């Protein structure tokens, strides 16, 4: 009797958040990639567009890609008029999505402080701040003393290799728990009828008369008129299945956390010159990143070189962290574009083929909002205005976006 009781409670406790339905022979839309972008698009297709007959095909498990490996930083202080509105809406979406999904996404709008160590970086920040303010987004320039008031553990003396000269403070940014977003969206989508097939790999996409007809997987063929490439770091490989090359190179980006500490860092701090950003998680760890080996590869290896670099950068900026130990480090893939902006396109040149990739190391913050508009695009075949600038065609039209000229690229060397 007692035994059965425990078994029942155990069952109830381990209730699946999404079911494992059998793979059907046809769907109205097939999403390749169970990351944040794929899951968000599936969720919004079902919720806003009435398209519930949708499959998310994930070769490993949901969140296996960048969506489960990122450092969870969200902000809306980008540089260009095409990017700012999307990120601003993305930031406003987190609390709404928390309610809607009935899942605690742990949105923590602690604010981001981006440090400048040169006149060049300050100049670039002036432009960013002006652009953000023009779009009604809170962002301001601060001097070194104000930096210290915001983050008291910063060393604003002239001892660091690159002394702090000021910064850009963006109060509405912060962090969101990345796993919660993946799980919340998956549960929300599944409740609306979306099928999530983990451990299933897409191996080909079939086209007839310029239209998508079906998708090949290692578990069988799926007929569908619409497919989305949301394969993150693997997006060029999926794109190759349909004969489209992308202006993407795949780099490995690394991150790490320290042992847990008492609360000492209450904001996201970042520095382009040091190639370092850090925040303290709610568990007390200092989560920090992020370096990239500049040669493409599909490993998710970490390197001793960057652990050393990270320790040097952190303790140079925040000397009280000296002696704190790193506990874990990991890496993920980043699909980098030449203009640091994503590629979102569809029905061009193949009817029914959509892509949402090239999100590099910044695609977490905007994943949910992009999914919302992409669902509209896929259901109506009309590209919403907010997504139109991200077309793949911009590269051959020589209209690259200006996101590359952000503070990361301005240091004491220019």
């Amino acid at each position, binding site marked *: 009797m007692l035994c059965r009781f425990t078994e029942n409670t155990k069952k109830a406790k381990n209730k699946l958040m999404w079911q494992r339905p059998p793979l059907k022979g046809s769907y109205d839309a097939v999403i390749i990639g169970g990351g944040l972008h794929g899951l968000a698009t599936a969720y919004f297709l079902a919720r806003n567009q009435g398209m519930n007959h949708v499959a998310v095909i994930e070769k490993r498990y949901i969140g296996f890609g960048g969506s489960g490996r990122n450092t969870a930083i969200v902000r809306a202080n980008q540089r260009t008029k095409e990017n700012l509105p999307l990120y601003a809406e993305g930031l406003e979406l987190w609390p709404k999505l928390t309610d809607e999904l009935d899942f605690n996404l742990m949105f923590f709008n602690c604010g981001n402080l981006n440090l400048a160590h040169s006149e060049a970086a300050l100049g670039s920040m002036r432009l960013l701040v002006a652009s953000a303010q023009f779009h009604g987004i809170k962002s301001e320039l601060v001097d070194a003393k104000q930096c210290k008031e915001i983050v008291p553990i910063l060393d604003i003396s002239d001892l660091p290799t690159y002394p702090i000269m000021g910064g850009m403070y963006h109060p509405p940014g912060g962090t969101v728990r990345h796993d919660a977003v993946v799980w919340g969206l998956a549960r929300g989508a599944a409740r609306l009828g979306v099928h999530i097939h983990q451990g299933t790999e897409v191996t080909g996409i079939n086209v007839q008369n310029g239209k998508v007809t079906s998708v090949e997987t290692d578990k069988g063929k799926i007929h569908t008129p619409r497919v989305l490439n949301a394969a993150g770091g693997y997006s060029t490989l999926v794109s190759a299945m349909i004969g489209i090359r*992308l202006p993407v190179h795949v780099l490995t980006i690394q991150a790490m956390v320290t042992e847990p500490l008492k609360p000492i860092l209450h904001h996201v701090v970042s520095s382009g010159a040091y190639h370092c950003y850090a925040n303290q998680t709610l568990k007390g760890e200092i989560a920090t990143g992020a370096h990239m080996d500049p*040669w493409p*590869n*599909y490993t998710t*290896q970490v390197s001793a070189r960057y652990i050393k670099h990270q320790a040097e950068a952190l303790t140079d900026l925040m000397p009280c962290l000296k002696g704190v130990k790193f506990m874990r480090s990991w890496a993920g893939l980043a699909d980098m574009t030449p203009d640091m902006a994503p590629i979102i396109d569809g029905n061009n040149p193949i009817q029914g083929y959509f892509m949402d990739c090239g999100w590099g190391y910044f695609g977490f913050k905007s994943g949910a909002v992009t999914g919302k508009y992409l669902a509209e695009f896929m259901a109506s075949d009309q590209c919403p205005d907010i997504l139109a600038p991200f077309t793949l065609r911009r590269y*051959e039209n020589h209209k690259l976006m200006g996101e590359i000229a952000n503070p990361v690229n301005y240091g004491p060397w220019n």
Partner: protein
Amino acid sequence: MSLTISCPICGKRDGYEFRFGGEERGPRPDEEGLTHEQWCSYVHMRINKAGIQREWWYHQEGCGSWFTIERDTLTNLEVEGREET
């Protein structure tokens, strides 16, 4: 495992001495009759092969040579002894 690269002049050295120069993508297209699409394809488009690819490296902190090697992008290790194809 950390990356080492074989420079034709200096021999096998630490990968961080080198600068990556991109996947081999054939000769620069002729300017005569060049379309925007061809130029974009040459400048921006990449294959990102998952496997062994031929690619360019520059020995930045060494002799300054430009050369190609083969590397397996799935293991991040140089594949030695394969003739240029």
